[in-house]
């Protein structure tokens, strides 16, 4: 058991190093660096540009740049943003609460509709209820969440004459204003992500309902609602928990487009801006951070699995 945990933790290192190398190489392959972008169109002498590159360390050989960066990371230092000059950690700290809060709200919304509807679809398999729920969930997978967002804004403007505030308020200052800004994006994103968990819930519940112990429970006269809630759902939820957790990890950095629609200054926007500015340190740190979150959540899910289901034993 301990060997397994340590092994899994050690395996994260090559994955993350791989992510680091890949981002590093991809970004250097992009034509134009930050200095070229900053002085684009101006008539600054080449010497100034060269000096600027020297200050930022961009004139060093690629290999040195990479080892320097890895060395920094090993010391727990993510470096400074090339664009703003502020420490990367600070820039991320400003955006992270928003992204995490949005991810939590979206996940809560997704779970709140996915689990009940998934169970209902499974219990009423092949009836019209099942069909409606399936169409609803495939619809969630089909509509771009930024478009749902646009439509919701359009709807609230025309019907209630209300639009979400343009400025984000931290939850510590004014919870109501905070919620007003995040509720629409959370629903737009949550609907899409509920579709995946809803389908997962449906198929696992269907599978569990065919198990022998469900038949036993029914045979001894347990009410159907108790069979579904206590015997089937409990056992069916494990894979659903996996799907939901992995989605949560993706939501933190993956809401690039939705953030754009709702004018939210989150991690996704930070990443897109950093790519546009060729802000190497920022991109590398962000991608590494997102990958680390994903890998850690993946690991945590496996651990929780083992805890929830004593039959699972990893060797």
């Amino acid at each position, binding site marked *: 058991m301990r060997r397994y945990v340590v092994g899994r933790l050690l395996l994260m290192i*090559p*994955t993350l190093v791989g992510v680091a190398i890949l981002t590093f190489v*991809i970004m250097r392959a*992009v034509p134009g660096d930050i200095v070229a972008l900053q002085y684009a169109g101006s008539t600054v002498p080449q010497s100034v540009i060269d000096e600027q590159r020297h200050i930022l360390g961009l004139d060093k050989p690629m290999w040195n740049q990479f080892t320097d960066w890895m060395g920094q990371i090993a010391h727990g230092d993510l470096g400074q943003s090339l664009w703003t000059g502020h420490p990367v950690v600070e820039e991320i700290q400003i955006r992270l609460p928003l992204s995490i809060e949005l991810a939590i709200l979206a996940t809560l919304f997704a779970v709140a509709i996915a689990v009940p509807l998934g169970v209902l679809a499974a219990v009423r398999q092949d009836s019209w209820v099942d069909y409606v729920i399936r169409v609803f969930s*495939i619809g969630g997978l089909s509509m*771009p969440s930024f478009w749902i967002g646009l439509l919701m804004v359009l709807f609230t403007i025309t019907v209630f004459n209300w639009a979400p505030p343009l400025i984000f308020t931290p939850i510590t200052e004014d919870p109501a204003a905070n919620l007003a800004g995040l509720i629409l994006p959370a629903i737009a994103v949550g609907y899409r992500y509920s579709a*995946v968990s809803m389908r997962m819930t449906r198929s696992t519940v269907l599978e569990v309902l065919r198990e022998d112990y469900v038949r036993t429970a029914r045979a001894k006269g347990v009410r159907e609602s108790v069979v579904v809630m206590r015997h089937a759902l409990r056992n069916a939820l494990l894979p659903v928990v996996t799907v939901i957790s992995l989605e949560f990890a993706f939501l933190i950095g993956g809401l690039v487009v939705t953030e*754009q629609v709702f004018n939210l200054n989150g991690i996704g926007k930070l990443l897109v801006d950093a790519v546009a500015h060729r802000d190497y340190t920022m991109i590398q740190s962000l991608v590494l951070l997102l990958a680390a979150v994903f890998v850690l959540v993946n690991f945590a899910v496996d651990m929780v699995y083992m805890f929830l289901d004593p039959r699972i034993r990893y060797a």
Partner: protein
Amino acid sequence: MAASADVIARKRYLESTGSRRFVRFWGDFVRRRPLGTAGAALILVMIAAAALADVIAPYDPVKINFADLLQGPSSRHLLGTDPFGRDVFSRLVFGARTALLVGFVSSLVGCTVGLVLGVISAYFGGRVDTLIQRLMDVLLSFPLIVIAIAVVAALGTGQGLIGNVIAAITVPIIPRVARVVRSSALSVVRMPYIEATRSVGAGAVRIMFRHVAPNVFAPYLIMMTAFLGQAILLEASLSFLGLGVFEPTPSWGLMLRGAGMQFLEQAPWLAVAPGVAISMAVFGFNLFGDSLRDALDPRLRTG
């Protein structure tokens, strides 16, 4: 009930051969899977729109007309016009071409590369397997959109660079397919007939692509339909961000980007129409893919 119908359909399907088998399969599909058939119909509508765009579209999709700026839907302009006076309906029809081109090429290439990697991984096992799987893990630990943005940034965007958009959408598809194919292929490579083929002296390449690959064709086909929809969605998202297809090429995501956002209140049709088109197209592929999965391989779960 449903299970026995499946068994009968399967038996009838296996007993027939050649073109009759093909007709049987789709006959059963249409009869027993109304949702999938509806999806197929949506796909056919989209293909027809793309193929006959020149005939269907009443106006030139890129022609700017300053006399008709931001007109509402009317008999002259079915879905109104955009801030350049271009006919929204015509742009939608031509947009089907862009969406299908990007969706089809990227999911075909992505799924095929994923298939090859998955089969190689399962056949050789050991170090080759570990190497490929670690590489796929790396690709999988990026959010889909993030890796697409990175590829677009690396290759550059601009007018006429639609190939780069396709590449950006292809890359994130590969690891997802490779993983599923690998797990299906793992059970195939242990089959006795593979051992038999090897014992008569067939080479690794021949075994992998003549004997293993055809047996993982069902998940390949299913994933290809599913990813076609996702690719269309991803193209729309990238274009919406300004990292995909460029003006004046008609693209649904692009139509939502500029005018759709800016004139949301004055001209809601600009935001509604392309969104409906995207949703219907992806909806069609998803419905069809889902039913195809049920029909081809009821045990397979792709989540």
